[in-house]
């Protein structure tokens, strides 16, 4: 007899209900939405803001389908894309720069589904369109930069402690000091070690009686600097992405020195690349205004401690190597206009340390010129070099001079986005346009659909009722797979959709094994009940063994794959698991439901069971 215990039916029923609930959200279409989140941690998103937004939309007569507040921010759904764009512009201008107003597509599934965590599958970039970047942080540059900072610090320490030295400079990632006198050197060594515990100082006597002191970063300090460089760059990238208004950006560290940036749904990929790709750092330095120095530099002999650069108009300008301020001292920057001249200008706010340094520098250098440099990929450009008219305190600085308001905007954005702790380089890029993403979804869906239909027709024709049961098991398998993918919020990619199709093709293997086994048992003269029993039992061991090997391949792919391939592996592995459950457990349950109750089972509807001629004496059981 093929009775199934009640508890097994309960397990099946629970699996079906849960599977259906979690598959459901995928059937609701996506609707255009606007997502509002805060760009600063101090700015809170709350019900008051929700009220403001709803009032704003109502007063502008913009129809919306509903607004809700969740952990990410506020989401407002609209009926069409035009309204969405209008609402975005309206809200952005109303709410100001403290909020990020981003376009998004949200599922229109009912609220109760989302509240039990039933969300649609998470689509990868190749399906929804967007940008993927892998950036490599230049660690050597991070260390060099740290050494630069120490050079400046050591110089002021020597001055403060009144130690006489003949020179200080950076060599690689070490700071090298030169002395005439060995007692001064010992004194310097003592002071440096006391002031900067992160430095390892050693004495070195170069040829020619030059007494040197070499200070290098200790290994733990190096690791710390590198780690914080990556972290700082991630923070800055996040700020830049915020400027873009992306709904669900992913910015993550990958390995020790890499950063992954994914911007799903970005329409204007060129602009995204432009803003992200600007691996610019900002520096403020003094202009070298020694008479004749510029001419000499143009002539080929650049004075020691200076750099010959060009400004935006291509004019040569000589600036000192010593950095007054770096971009990380900037807390905010806004474009605007000079209240006196009406020219476009950038208003910069400095943090307290930056404000103090800036005050000192401007006090000491009234009447001199100060250069603001933008450094991109090792190339420096002077954005502007204004004359300091007076001491500037309070940390509010205005930069003006020969720029358009668009340029002012760009500079403000770059300054606001901050300087990178170390330069970064894009080492991998995958950009998919939104139309291609939609096409890919259709293609993936079609592959699954058409393949499945042909497969189902064949299996039903070949195995009759048992084939129908196999097909039902396969449908359940598909549903459970989608449910698990939705539950785990695993990323679905185009190869992932191919994996769904492939998994279905492979999952049928279990049912073919079982059905062939049952036929074989019938052929050898077993009674139908015994044949079903033996068929399922014998096939189980084979199914398990064969799936384990497929699983090994899937797991290795998951471990070593990246991006779309990982998506393939996830679906593949999950599909194997669900197929074992549905092909064996559930199909057996259905068989038991149909045949289990019949005490005298004459035949099973499994198609014709062919009898070899030599066994013709056995009653035919087809």
């Amino acid at each position, binding site marked *: 007899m093929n009775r199934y215990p009640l508890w097994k039916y309960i397990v099946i029923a629970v699996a079906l209900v849960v599977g259906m609930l979690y598959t459901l959200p995928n059937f609701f279409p996506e609707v255009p939405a606007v997502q509002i989140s805060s760009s600063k941690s101090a700015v809170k998103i709350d019900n008051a803001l929700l009220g403001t937004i709803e009032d704003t939309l109502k007063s502008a007569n913009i129809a919306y389908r509903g607004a809700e507040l969740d952990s990410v921010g506020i989401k407002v759904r609209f009926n069409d894309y035009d309204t969405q764009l209008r609402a975005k512009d309206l809200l952005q201008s109303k709410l100001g720069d403290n909020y990020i107003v981003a376009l998004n597509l949200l599922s229109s599934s009912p609220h109760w589904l989302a509240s039990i965590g039933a969300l649609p599958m998470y689509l990868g970039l*190749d399906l929804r369109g967007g940008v993927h970047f892998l950036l*490599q942080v230049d660690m050597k540059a991070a260390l060099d930069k740290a050494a630069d900072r120490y050079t400046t610090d050591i110089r002021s320490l020597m001055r403060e402690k009144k130690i006489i030295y003949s020179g200080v400079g950076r060599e690689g990632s070490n700071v090298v000091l030169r002395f005439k006198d060995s007692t001064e050197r010992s004194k310097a060594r003592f002071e440096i070690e006391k002031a900067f515990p992160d430095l390892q100082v050693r004495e070195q006597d170069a040829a020619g009686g030059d007494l040197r002191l070499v200070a290098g970063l200790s290994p733990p300090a190096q690791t710390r600097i590198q780690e914080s460089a990556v972290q700082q760059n991630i923070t800055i990238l996040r700020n830049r992405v915020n400027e873009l208004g992306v709904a669900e950006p992913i910015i993550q560290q990958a390995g020790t020195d890499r950063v992954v940036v994914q911007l799903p749904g970005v329409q204007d*990929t060129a602009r995204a*690349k432009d803003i992200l*790709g600007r691996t610019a750092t900002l520096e403020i330095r003094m202009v070298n205004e020694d008479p004749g120095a510029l001419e000499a530099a143009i002539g080929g002999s650049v004075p020691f401690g200076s750099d010959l650069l060009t400004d935006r108009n291509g004019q040569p300008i000589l600036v000192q190597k010593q950095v007054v301020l770096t971009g990380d001292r900037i807390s905010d920057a806004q474009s605007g206009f000079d209240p006196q001249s009406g020219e476009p200008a950038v208003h910069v706010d400095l943090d307290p340390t930056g404000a103090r340094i800036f005050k000192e520098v401007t006090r000491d250098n009234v009447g001199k010129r100060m250069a603001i440099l933008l450094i991109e990929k090792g190339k420096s450009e002077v954005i502007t070099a204004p004359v300091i008219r007076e001491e500037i305190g309070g940390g509010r600085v205005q930069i003006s001079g020969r720029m358009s308001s668009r340029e002012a905007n760009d500079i403000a954005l770059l300054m606001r986005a901050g300087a990178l702790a170390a330069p970064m*380089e*894009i*080492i*991998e*890029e*995958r*950009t*998919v346009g939104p*139309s*291609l993403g939609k*096409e*890919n979804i259709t*293609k993936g869906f*079609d*592959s699954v659909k*058409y*393949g*499945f239909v*042909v*497969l189902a027709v*064949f299996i039903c024709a*070949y195995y009759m009722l048992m084939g129908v049961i196999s097909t039902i098991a396969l449908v359940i398998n598909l549903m459970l797979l989608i449910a698990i993918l939705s539950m785990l919020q695993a990323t679905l990619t185009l*190869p992932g*959709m*191919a994996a769904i*199709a*492939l998994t279905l*093709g492979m999952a*049928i*293997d279990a049912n*073919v*094994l079982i059905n*062939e086994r049952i036929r*074989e048992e019938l052929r050898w003269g077993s009674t139908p009940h015994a044949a079903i029993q033996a068929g399922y039992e*014998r096939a189980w061991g*084979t199914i398990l*063994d*064969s799936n384990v*090997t*497929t699983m*090994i391949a*899937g797991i290795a*792919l998951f*471990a*070593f*794959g*990246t*991006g779309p*391939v990982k998506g*393939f592996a996830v679906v593949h592995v999950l599909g194997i698991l669900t197929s074992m459950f549905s092909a064996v457990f559930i199909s057996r349950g259905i068989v038991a439901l149909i045949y289990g109750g019949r005490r005298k089972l004459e035949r099973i509807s499994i*198609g*014709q069971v*062919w009898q*070899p*001629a030599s066994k013709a004496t056995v009653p035919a059981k087809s």
Partner: protein
Amino acid sequence: MEFFRISRDIPFMRHALVFNVISLLTFIAAIVFLSVKGLNLGVDFRGGTVIEVNYGHAVDFGRLRTALDKLGLGTEASAQSFGASDTALIRLPLQQGVSSAQLSDRVMKALKADDPAATQRRVEFVGPQVGKELYQNGALALLLVSFGIVIYLALRFEWRFAVAAIVANLHDVVIILGFFAFFHWEFSLPVLAAVLAVLGYSVNESVVIADRIRENFRKMRKATVTHVIDSAITSTLSRTIITHGCTLLMVLSIFFFGGESLHYFSLALAIGICFGIYSSALVMASLVMWLGVSREDLVRPDRNRGVAGDKILP
């Protein structure tokens, strides 16, 4: 409906030598193509930039190439049709000192200036170090999968099956690669995924046959090893063909409806599935035979379960 009406066990093993010679020849041919022509590694592994451009009308490749040539990107830059006639795929080699963002922007600007209908659909850029890593990871994954399978089969069956199965299935992998080398098809990350999936899938096939061989050793106590193997292959033949047919059906569905980016992926799967049938049934089984599998090797573990008791009976 029943397709396979085989009344007697087919004496596959009588022709084992023939099958293995055929296998060996295809295998050698694949190796020759791989070493002479080499794999046409895609941008994923070699590094470089790929830009997919849609024109909305049939692409004029002459004009497109002239526009590209003007940029001076080197002789390795190429443009070809991709899927539909209105879409072009431009491949650019790695450029020293030019970032990917700049490069693709420059190309798109030039193409747009040439024909405003050009829209960028996809850009893929892989830096040299990333390409190398992906290549290494791919090789490592292949190695790991092979190891994992050998260990699992050795534990579950016997070392002879493990060795035979992995030889038979790696031979499939090499043949797929041989096809890619011979036709100069592009070998990309999804193709690698397909190759690994094929490896797992054909081993699955070998397992089914190995399982049946083991079962037959228990049931057919008087039969010779050759007969046992023949019977195992014959009785699983129907299942083998139907299962593979079904999987192939899905793969063909991906091939025809999945679009250009899954083209080579599904092609690799299709070749793998076809050769998988052959190699598991014929190559693996004859290798097991030659490695000298015997009843004692497989039936022995059952002594603990008391089944071996009835071995003495007949």
